[in-house]
């Protein structure tokens, strides 16, 4: 029982990190109607940026976000303008090809600079832990979870308390109507892509501390992230967060109760079951609730 409880707590904490990564992906889908299959590669890129700052300049991985998040935001704006904006017709299908090419390009560049050897970011808090009842929690999971809460809170504040946030929500809900009230949807799209990449940087640093990774680590990551946003309802931030927590808790409990081998499998079984019962996902289009 204690093991299950421990797995559930760990699932929630890890789920927070996945929620952050998935929120960027679903925000990009919501605003632009594109499926960014390169998002996993962007998370890995974020992890490598923090890795470089930690290894070469001895900068704490969490502190490195002060640099990597703005850098990734600007890079996201540039990528959107260069690769996504030119897609006018059949955006959803073409975006899969373009962003897959982007992922391969990033993987190739990272492979060139870092080889395919696995690396990991280390810090004192990735092994240090503190007791909660009869089990111990590693500090990095708490710090990662708090980071995700702070960033997701900031994103929600921006979306619901600022005029530009209102423009992002409006674009997600009805792109044509947003244009007709004067919202510059191209600008909104570029900023949304930048925000998505900044969240990838933040998710990447926690991913890089809690996992060994190499340039090809994005394949497993993107399959999980896509599962989460489909389960939550495409374009729904709230859905992505809840789905991430549910999936990671189920995965961790399965690993404890049955076997770690089955944990990944259960992840996708849950997806199939939910889609059979509720094809639009938890917070999908039927109720028109995307945020």
């Amino acid at each position, binding site marked *: 029982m204690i093991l299950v409880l421990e797995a559930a707590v760990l699932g929630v904490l890890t789920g927070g990190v996945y929620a952050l990564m998935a929120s960027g992906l679903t925000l990009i889908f919501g605003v632009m109607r594109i499926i960014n299959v390169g998002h996993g590669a962007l998370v890995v890129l974020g992890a490598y940026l923090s890795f470089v700052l930690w290894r070469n300049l001895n900068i704490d991985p969490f502190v490195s976000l002060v640099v990597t998040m703005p850098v990734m935001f600007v890079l996201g704006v540039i990528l959107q303008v260069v690769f996504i904006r030119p897609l006018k017709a059949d955006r959803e299908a073409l975006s899969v090809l373009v962003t897959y090419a982007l992922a391969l390009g990033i993987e190739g560049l990272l492979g060139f600079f870092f080889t395919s050897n696995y690396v990991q970011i280390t810090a004192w808090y990735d092994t240090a832990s503190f007791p909660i009842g009869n089990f111990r929690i590693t500090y990095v999971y708490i710090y990662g979870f708090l980071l995700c809460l702070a960033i997701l809170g900031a994103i929600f504040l921006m979306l619901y308390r600022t005029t530009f946030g*209102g*423009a992002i929500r409006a674009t997600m*809900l009805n792109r044509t109507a947003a244009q007709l*009230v004067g919202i510059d949807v191209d600008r909104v799209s570029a900023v949304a892509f930048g925000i998505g990449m900044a969240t990838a940087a933040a998710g990447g640093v926690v991913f890089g501390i809690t996992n060994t990774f190499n340039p090809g680590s994005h394949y497993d990551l993107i399959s999980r992230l896509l599962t989460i946003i489909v389960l939550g309802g495409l374009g729904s931030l709230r859905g992505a967060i809840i789905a991430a927590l549910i999936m990671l808790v189920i995965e961790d409990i399965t690993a404890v109760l049955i076997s770690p081998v089955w944990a990944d499998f259960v992840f996708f079984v849950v997806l199939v079951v939910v889609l059979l019962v509720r094809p639009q996902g938890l917070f999908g289009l039927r109720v028109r*609730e995307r945020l």
Partner: protein
Amino acid sequence: MAALLELEGLVAGYGGGDILLGIDLTVEEGSLTCIVGPNGAGKSTLLRVVSGLLKPTRGSVRFRRESIAALSPRAILNRGIVQVPQERSLFPTMTVWENVRLGAYTVRDRGLVERRLAAVGETFPIVKERRNELAASLSGGQQKIVEFARALMLDPTLLILDEPSMGLDPKTRTTVFNTIRSMNDAGHTLLLVEQNARSGLGIATHGVVMESGRVRLQGPGPEVLSNPEIGRLYLGAA
């Protein structure tokens, strides 16, 4: 009355070919111009060109004598041309108040936005009464009224309404047309596209009949409405 919007030899379409095949049309300041015609006549395409959502392949679009054919939707909006599209265009999971406020998204003067919000709330009581409710919770007619309110937040020089009565029951349709007439009485210039020819031409100062991408007839609204030939061909039992 002075010409506000002038279309000359307008040709436009999508990938599959031209839909508008040489439109000549003038909308005068203070008028309520209503365009009617069967499905596929090109009415909505014409409005998309005026709003900047579709670029013409030939011809000119002039607004207050300035060519606007190449301008972006936002630039056209900034010149005072606001369109309420045919399909429901409120943002469903935003409140009525948020929706109306977004109508003034391009206005930077916060005081002006607040004054217009207050004025729109007076003109359309439903905006104030249902301000905190989600737009999706309103009926079709109520949503249309809120769309009008949102459009007026920019104090438009030309307000374009694309088939505002579509999908509404007869009673709600009457309310919507009364509201359109009131906006015109208040001094707004309106360009209305309407399937329901009798209701549209009945309140119009100027009527236009389109067919297959061309203007077939135009004149004062009641005259167009009473033209027996046009009535038989295009208006049917509407």
